[in-house]
């Protein structure tokens, strides 16, 4: 391979750009780029934009729920907002952010010059803006956007107007983008590691992404199949999910959640990887139980395939199925517990400092664990008959997704921004952002546990008056949290424009290949494979 490309390279050397130059100039750089750092930046900026748009939708929801009675929007639009908020946040904010981090960091962490499939990389990003333009565009179509919830349960979702076809096409495009991204990650990790970077020397962020990529390839086609059946049921008179024609509406839920549960872990495993990078750095101590972490991640990924029906305990399954899915779900607590114990053990007897990435990582460990506790409670079927489809569930998955996935992404951004931009972000503003976020997010979501236990169903635009107080508190928290994220956007923008110059090492305790590169990381890195020895192994843990 190398001799062929080298020859081709020599041939074109005179009239094309040599790849040892810096970044090309102009807007088209971003359109045609095949550079993993450019594409990572595109993903991250896109994801931040979607985060703010999806957050705006959440604020419309919280504004309507500020007090009982309908003041701002009608129920149809409210349902469109809950549906779109979920689709935008899951597929537009969280997943692309992780892919962006993978693009930036995986090649630099394993000593590869770029992703394995750079042109496909470009394509898998550039699908996203078009898909989301179409998806969000349905809100402006005569029949309105989808309003049946992001889970698209039939028969309700089949009552969507003609815009439904656009929604499904958008989901197909997002699926294609995700699958291509996943193929790229797997191909890169398996083929492009520098000599000496054995699998068990890889940083945990790389490990968690390798496992996540396999989950993506396994389940995105399942989602594609499910929504295609919805499409033909809606427009071509098939009856996959209609009992009147011999179909079964519950079958959709089984197929959807066979995708949906691994999808949940697609959004949290890379977060585990990020936290496993940050805590050792700021504790100045090797990660506790590296191999246990790898095996725990793999176990969680495996279990994610056999717990899907815990999302549907109230559909009336046979007793045996309810028991199986309850037990399987409870088992997930074991490998997840191992991860939490390992993080705490990593901190124990370390020499910690508390820069913004570490603060977000610590908040992640506590608040994600609270989300895990409520998840364990939800697994208990007899109690789930009460919790199911209430605000208790809303509180649960926002704890794991916002204070879990999103906090990890924010922590990663602060952690690696100096490496990306060459500048330190404003630490004082970062700390303000942290405290503001961590307080407001709990004001936002913690009262929702009480609302669910008191009997408030989810996805309702108006509520009985006994729920008024906690809804008002939650809405105030929501607005404060939303505002805090504008501060985050400002800090990122400020850091990209300038600031105190960062050293190559950036953080005193940082270990790993990416910290051997100058800050900002040059446009092309590791054209020559680096020499891997124990000093650059991320966790200093070579004795496992």
């Amino acid at each position, binding site marked *: 391979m190398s001799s062929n490309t080298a020859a081709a390279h020599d041939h074109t050397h005179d009239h094309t750009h040599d790849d040892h130059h810096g970044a090309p100039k102009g807007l088209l750089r971003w359109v045609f780029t095949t550079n993993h750092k450019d594409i990572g930046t595109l993903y991250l900026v896109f994801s931040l934009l979607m985060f703010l748009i999806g957050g705006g939708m959440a604020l419309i929801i919280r504004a309507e729920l500020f007090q*009982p*009675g309908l003041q701002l*929007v009608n*129920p149809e639009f409210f*349902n469109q907002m809950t549906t779109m908020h979920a689709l935008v946040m899951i597929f537009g904010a969280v997943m692309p952010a992780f892919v962006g981090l993978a693009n930036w960091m995986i090649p630099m962490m394993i000593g590869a010059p770029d992703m394995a499939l750079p042109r496909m990389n470009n394509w898998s990003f550039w699908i996203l803006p078009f898909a989301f333009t179409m998806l969000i565009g349905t809100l402006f179509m005569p029949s309105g956007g989808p*309003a049946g*919830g992001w889970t698209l349960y039939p*028969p*309700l979702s089949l*009552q969507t107007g003609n815009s439904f076809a656009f929604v499904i096409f958008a989901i197909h495009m997002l699926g294609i983008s995700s699958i291509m991204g996943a193929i790229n990650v797997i191909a890169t990790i398996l083929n492009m590691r520098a000599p000496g970077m054995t699998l068990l020397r890889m940083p945990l962020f790389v490990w968690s992404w390798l496992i996540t990529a396999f989950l993506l390839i396994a389940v995105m086609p399942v989602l594609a199949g499910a929504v295609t059946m919805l499409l033909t049921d809606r427009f071509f008179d098939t009856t996959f999910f*209609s*009992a009147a024609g011999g179909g*079964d*509406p519950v079958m959709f839920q089984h197929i959807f959640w066979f995708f949906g549960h691994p999808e949940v872990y697609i959004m949290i495993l890379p977060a585990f990887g990020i936290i496993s990078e940050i805590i050792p750095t700021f504790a*100045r101590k090797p990660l*506790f*139980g*590296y191999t246990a972490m790898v095996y725990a991640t793999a176990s969680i990924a495996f279990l994610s395939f056999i717990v899907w029906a815990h999302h549907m305990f*109230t*559909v*009336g399954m046979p*007793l045996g199925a*309810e028991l199986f899915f309850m*037990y399987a779900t*409870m088992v997930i*607590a*074991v490998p997840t*517990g*191992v991860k939490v*114990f390992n993080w*705490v053990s990593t*901190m*124990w*007897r*370390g020499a*910690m400092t*508390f820069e913004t990435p570490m603060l977000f990582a*610590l908040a992640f460990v*506590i608040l994600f*664990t609270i989300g895990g*506790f409520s998840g364990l*409670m939800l697994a*208990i*079927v*007899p*109690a789930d*008959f*009460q919790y*199911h*489809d209430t605000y208790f569930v809303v509180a649960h998955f926002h704890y794991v997704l916002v204070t879990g996935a999103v906090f990890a992404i924010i922590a990663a951004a602060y952690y690696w921004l100096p490496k990306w931009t060459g500048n330190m972000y404003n630490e004082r503003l970062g700390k303000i952002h942290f405290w503001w976020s961590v307080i407001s997010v709990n004001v936002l979501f*913690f009262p929702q546990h*009480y609302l669910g*236990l008191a*009997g408030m169903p989810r996805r*309702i*635009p*108006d*509520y*009985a008056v006994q729920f008024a107080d*906690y809804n008002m508190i939650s809405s105030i928290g929501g607005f404060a949290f939303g505002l805090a994220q504008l501060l985050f956007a400002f800090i990122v923008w400020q850091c990209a424009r300038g600031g105190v110059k960062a050293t190559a090492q950036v953080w005193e305790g940082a270990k790993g290949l990416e910290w051997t590169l100058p800050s900002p990381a040059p446009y092309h890195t590791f054209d020559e494979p680096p020499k891997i020895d124990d000093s650059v192994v991320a966790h200093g843990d070579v004795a496992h």
Partner: protein
Amino acid sequence: MKNQNIVIVSIAVLAGMLLAVWGMFALGDNMPRGVTEFSQTAYDLHMLILWICVVIGVLVFGAMFVSIILHRKSNGVEAAQFTHSTKAEIAWTAIPILILILMAVPATRALILMETSEGAEMDIKITGYQWKWKYEYMDTGVSFISSLAQDSDIARQLNSGIDPTTVDNYLLEVDNALVVPTDTKIRLLLTSGDVIHSWWVPELGWKRDAIPGIVNTAWTSISEPGTYRGQCAELCGKDHGFMPVVVIAKPRAEFEQWLAQQPGYTGSDDVSALAQDTADDMTTSPEVALAD
């Protein structure tokens, strides 16, 4: 000296966390104990798991906070470099498994209780429609539609100008409530005429989906007379938030009197005979596909 520090800080952290947990419980709402055997069981399980989680949380977060307070660079500590402890790793894998087994036993027992609807003394069929419920007292000829009470319906319109706090049982009142006898095992057959709904009364301890083309079975036996309110729990379209459930439980004799006064009543002098007729038509498995 160092160990003494750890002990003092640990006690302070634990006390602080217990105070915080107590505050959260004192402040917040909790799941209702309800008026059925099953709702009490669900409540007990909920509290059991909650307390187990609280204890684990206090220990794990406590260790973390102690570490944050003591093991910081500004205290001039030197980072240890250990990366393994086989004993600890075995312990924190095995102990959670034991705790999970402890949780699974009562949960399994409760679930088996819930899913055994044999011996029901009467049957009521519940059909969900966008956005109302239909109740049929099987083999008595009595059936009616139950939808949101008119004053709530007027007040809940966008910018109605009516303060919801002035409406009695805002959004939780219906025109025709479901009336049932107390201390009677009632089997509920749930289905839907259009999209999926979910019938839920928190005081009864469960919710179950009403799905078109499928008849789901559940049962209840209410111990105390009273009015119990709930809502549709599965998103079912624009007025999902406006299809409440109201159940009025009356002593058996009063219930029979009420039933006999309903329009269309064809007579059934013994409520307990009701179930026998339908039990032959319906299997007791949770899902039965209907021909219609």
